[in-house]
């Protein structure tokens, strides 16, 4: 294990890390020492991170895995029940709804990516004044407490007194109770999710955009390319490592959505069957119904879904992500 981590640390820029921030220079292929030759002190640098990962991620994951095969009492003590939890999970009528809701939320949340690319490109326009101000404005939601965001958006969406319906009323549109109507609740929450995450994505894309060399753009100018052509033929391909990174992170984040739903809807919301996600199902099993083993099985199913989707994305990146 340490061998493996040490290797990773010694490779200057691994394939994976190059996607990050999109601006990684060089095409370094293990220019340093070969595997197994890293200096002993490299362990000191990765030690704290490795220890944290082991204690707070790997160990709980292993425990959760074993827990998913047990039925635990509310006050500790558990008995082995084999695959009972998984059998029950696949027969649970709520699972299908939760999978559908989670998938739908994820698809909507991905709309945030082109939106962030577009805003980042606008912010990157040469000669834009007050860029810092805009950047700050877009970033504020990222540093705001989720509880505060949920509270404010609940007020905005309020069917009787909400600002949204007030504004729609000006245009003669009769708004509804957005968060309690089963047909709109999930979309309404996804909009908040996109809005709250926009800032981070914009910053990542801005960094990527600034890594695109001016010479390429100048060459395109000489070839007579217009701004639209340049955007789609140069900016987007050169930004693709950043887009790839953001899409991987966004999909994982969207699959794990819980806090917004928990805080904005509440348990006896009539729209709950149409908004309950997998993590909400997990919360319900583990913390309301006191079934920790069953909850662990749900968590593991989610882990596998995330794993599969991420592997698929890494496979697909060869088709559209251009490193340089």
């Amino acid at each position: 294990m340490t061998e493996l981590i040490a290797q990773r640390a010694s490779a200057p820029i691994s394939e994976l890390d190059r996607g990050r921030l999109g601006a990684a220079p060089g095409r370094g292929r293990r220019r340093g020492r070969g595997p197994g030759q890293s200096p002993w002190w490299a362990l000191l640098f990765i030690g704290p991170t490795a220890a944290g990962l082991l204690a707070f991620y790997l160990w709980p994951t292993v425990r959760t895995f074993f827990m998913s095969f047990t039925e635990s009492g509310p006050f500790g003590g558990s008995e082995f029940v084999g695959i009972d939890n998984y059998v029950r999970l696949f027969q649970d009528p709520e699972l299908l709804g939760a999978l559908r809701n989670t998938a739908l939320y994820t698809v909507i949340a991905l709309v945030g990516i082109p939106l962030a690319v577009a805003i980042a490109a606008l912010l990157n326009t040469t000669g834009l004044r007050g860029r810092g101000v805009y950047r700050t404005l877009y970033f504020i939601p990222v540093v705001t407490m989720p509880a505060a965001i949920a509270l404010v958006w609940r007020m905005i969406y309020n069917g009787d007194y909400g600002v949204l319906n007030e504004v729609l009323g000006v245009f003669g549109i009769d708004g509804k109770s957005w968060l309690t109507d089963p047909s709109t609740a999930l979309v309404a929450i996804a909009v908040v999710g996109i809005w709250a995450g926009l800032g981070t994505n914009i910053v990542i894309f801005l960094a990527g955009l600034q890594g695109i060399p001016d010479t390429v753009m100048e060459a395109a100018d000489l070839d007579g390319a217009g701004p639209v052509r340049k955007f789609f033929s140069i900016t987007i391909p050169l930004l693709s490592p950043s887009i790839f990174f953001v899409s991987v992170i966004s999909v994982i984040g969207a699959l794990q959505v819980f806090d917004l739903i928990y805080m904005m809807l509440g348990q006896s919301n009539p729209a709950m069957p149409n908004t309950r996600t997998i993590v909400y199902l997990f919360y319900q099993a583990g913390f309301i119904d006191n079934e920790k083993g069953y909850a662990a099985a749900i968590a593991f199913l989610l882990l596998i879904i995330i794993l599969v989707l991420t592997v698929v994305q890494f496979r697909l990146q060869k088709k559209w992500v251009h490193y340089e």
Partner: protein
Amino acid sequence: MLRSAITRRGAAAVALAATAALALSACSDSGSAAGDGEAVTLEYGVWDQKQEAAMKEIAAAFTEEHPEVTVKLVTTPYKEYFTKLQTSVSGGSAPDVFWMNGPNFQLYASNGVLAPLDDQGIDPADYPQGLVDLYTFDGALFGAPKDFDTVGLWYNTELFDAAGVAYPEAGWTWDDLKATAAKLTDPAKGQFGIAASQFGQENYYNSIAQAGGEVISPDGTESGYGSPEALAGIELWTDLIAAGSSPTAQQMTDTNPEDLFFSGKVAMFQNGSWAAGAYADNPDIADKVNVAPLAAGPDGNQSVIHGLANVVNAKSDQLELAKEFAAFASGEAASDIMADSGTVIPAFDGKQQAWVDALPQYDLQVYIDALDTAVAYPVSKNTAAWTSIESEILSQVWAGSISPKDGLQQLATEMQAALDSESE
């Protein structure tokens, strides 16, 4: 008190990880040996900040009787209280004595977490029967009843006067309630007669009993939702919504119905005795509300009674002292302290007057009189498992996406399945 657990839809953050960490760090320091005369510390777990002062006074009174004992108050906000308690019980670091509520009691008692208090000379006759029943498990008393709450009908006198309608009074029937609610409804002003919200303790648990039905059988093994009486109890509320006398379920999910009552958009609002102090402190409504008994259904005007109890951790190092403190904190002297603080109604018989007198502007005697016919709060071994089903199905009934009849059939079946798996 209980309400915050079951119905409040406040927007508060869940820090699951943080809660777990909190529980881990909340190590008991009551491990010192229990010798005669040697200093010992008892930990007392509570959740209501408003009662902290009274609880400290009770702790001090106990120290007067037992100079070697210090009682240390451990306050955890209600939202995290039971999550933390459960973790600390598993980890062996739970307080020696702690507050318990009805929905959670049997879960703890049936798992051997609590110590029976039968040897503490607690006389059941000193406490309301409904509470003694609530905290009795397998024939033994595990909780010393601390306080109680019943439900009354609050109304806005200003709105009644403006409409020229007589105030609610004892002897009212459901028909009076419906007729008055209709009279006080004025769509032009966005004003409703009553808030028929999907609250159990405040609303439909009462009306189901008033119709002659029950939510759960007294032994906690059979769902009562399949009966025509339960259906009548639910339809009282859904009919009020259908008649337009109450805001819709959607409106009441968006805006807390109590806020609508505060702002004069709703004329009547059923609420527990815990509301009295808060209403008296609220300048918006303090002078324009009062409380009346609940309206009677076919079987009477019963209110559910719920209350907290002091229970003892069976694994406490100071078991005898802990038991003694639990009995003391629910006893006569402690009840005087609680009554004077005006925060809750002490469960101890005859100690309620101080609470009634504390707010003479309201007819608080209503809450005490309700004891005569009060019915026990519905609980079972794993109450939370079926209340989540209850809340979810009833939310569809309230929203009108399924009929009360179909909804209750489904609820009865699913709740019964949950109850059956409890007794396995």
